């Protein structure tokens, strides 16, 4: 009986997921030009690559650059290029914007009908993010292809195991990012402009995630401190994994699961307290 119920719930969940995803994907395709622009706006890692290349250790046999003379950053040009390309890919598929969408829905009163359906409203935002990621995919492939055309030496084929591990890492990174933003989004129930709080997280995210610099360039103490935050797991870890660089895989996955285990109950508790306060703004 219990197994039959579980089967029925899984079947129901599958149908809801398919319906939500297909409608959100159709919506994202309507906004494909905007999605392409968002993908292009994530080119920061390539800009940082240009800057950090000046400090890179040259591969063996090549002329040393300024970086070698200055002590370098522990990565050669090839590793650096691969790292930032992978950081770009990791960022593209782990980005979350739930706080902005949720805030707008709450202020415009669109949240009310969602709250009156037998489905946790956050699932709609999960579906919207996943649909947006699928819409982004061709643009990301195109940008990566252009990068390889410009720098053919950077081209490499990761092992199937690394690819699977990277997909999992990016998915977990997205989950952390989504939950972190959801916690802030839920503060809309208390403060109508919760997105302002999200901006507080942006600077630590930018620096500690490995988006502007590989964590190797940070002083050891700061690097160690960064690993006590969720940020390095959002970009740096999946990027290093995909780039084939040495990284503590098991410990990093464990840390990601730990962060999710911490953020998930916080999100649910905040949600429960928040909806009690909800006064159906704008509705």
């Amino acid at each position, binding site marked *: 009986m219990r197994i039959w119920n579980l089967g029925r719930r899984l079947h129901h969940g599958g149908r809801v997921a398919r*319906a939500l995803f*297909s409608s959100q994907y159709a*919506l994202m395709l309507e906004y494909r030009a905007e999605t392409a622009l968002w993908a292009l706006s994530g080119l920061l890692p390539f800009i940082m690559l240009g800057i950090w290349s000046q400090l890179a250790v040259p591969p063996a046999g090549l002329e040393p650059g300024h970086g070698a003379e200055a002590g370098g950053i522990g990565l050669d040009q090839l590793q650096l290029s691969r790292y930032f390309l992978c950081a770009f890919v990791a960022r593209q598929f782990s980005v979350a914007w739930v706080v902005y969408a949720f805030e707008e829905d709450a202020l415009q009163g669109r949240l009310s009908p969602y709250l009156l359906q037998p489905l946790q409203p956050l699932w709609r935002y999960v579906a919207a993010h996943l649909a947006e990621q699928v819409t982004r995919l061709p643009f990301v492939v195109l940008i990566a292809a252009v990068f390889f055309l410009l720098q053919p030496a950077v081209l490499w084929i990761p092992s199937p195991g690394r690819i699977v591990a990277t997909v999992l890492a990016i998915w977990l990174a997205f989950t952390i990012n989504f939950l972190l933003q959801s916690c802030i989004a839920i503060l809309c129930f208390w403060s109508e402009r919760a997105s302002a709080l999200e901006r507080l997280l942006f600077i630590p995210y930018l620096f500690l995630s490995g988006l502007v610099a590989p964590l190797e360039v940070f002083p050891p103490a700061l690097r160690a401190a960064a690993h006590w935050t969720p940020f390095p797991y959002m970009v740096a870890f999946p990027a290093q994994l995909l780039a084939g660089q040495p990284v503590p895989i098991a410990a990093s996955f464990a840390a990601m699961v730990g962060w999710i285990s911490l953020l998930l109950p916080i999100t649910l508790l905040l949600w429960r307290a928040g909806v009690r306060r909800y006064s159906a703004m704008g509705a």
Partner: protein
Amino acid sequence: MAIIRAEALSKTYRVADKQPGLAGTLRHFVQRRHRDVAAVKGVSFTIEAGEMVGFLGPNGAGKTTTLKMLSGLIHPSGGSAEVAGYLPQRRQADFLRQITLVMGQKQQLIWDLPPLDSLRVNAAVYGLDDATARRRIAELADMLELGEELTRPVRKLSLGQRMKAELLAALLHQPAVLFLDEPTLGLDINAQARVRAFLADYNRRHGATVLLTSHYLADITALCPRVLLIHEGGLFHDGSLRELSSRLAPCRLVRLELEEPRPAADFVSYGEVEACDGRDVRLLVERERLTEVVARLLATLEVRDLEVSDPPIEELIGRLFRQGAVA
């Protein structure tokens, strides 16, 4: 058996109290002040399954807040509510499957996609299999006279078509209780009539309970044998429109068409002269004196036509809301 029960239901909002101008802004920044606003004050009523009840009241009277509490969207500050055997604010899935809340001008349909896409999501969320969903969509679309509009993006639909599509989406799971907040707001007269006819038909076919608010009294008179009149957060009347009319106006309206014009002063002894325009006279006469006054009028004046009616309910309610004084 009562399907909706409200017992001393009340809701108080805490709102920021800020004075205008720079000084007010700075004072508010340094020392934030709030005050409590009672939107609903201890409202009690019950509604039987299958009833269609109109919810009347001026803007800010507490109608929408009451609907939001009954649908579980907001928590009451005091009292209790029970709908279909559930506490609404718990928003249990089994409760949500039995209700719907439609708010005019607010939409649940995805703006850039055809309504059918949103309907597919709703069908999945409410656990309807494909065949049932198709059958219900066809039935409701037929009742609402919707066809190819369901495959056009919502943004391309007229307000009336959009409202009908919203109703379809809100009723796809065949709820037993409908909370409708201004479902005809902004619609033209034809569209209003179609929505009204649809709601009456839906109630007849499915025995659904309907609690309806509307600024258009025609909606209420056409659909609701019973009305709840809420005023300044409290329940002022619970009964038929006719009873409400008697309560608000202990007078009846007598229209006279005379053979010869007469001055207003000639009618003062009959009742309150509401209008005197030559041969056309309108008098408000106390109900107890009506027979005697009509007999006197016919005996003493040359009357071409005489008509007795209740004063228009819109006028009576409007007067009540303007006066603000409620017995």
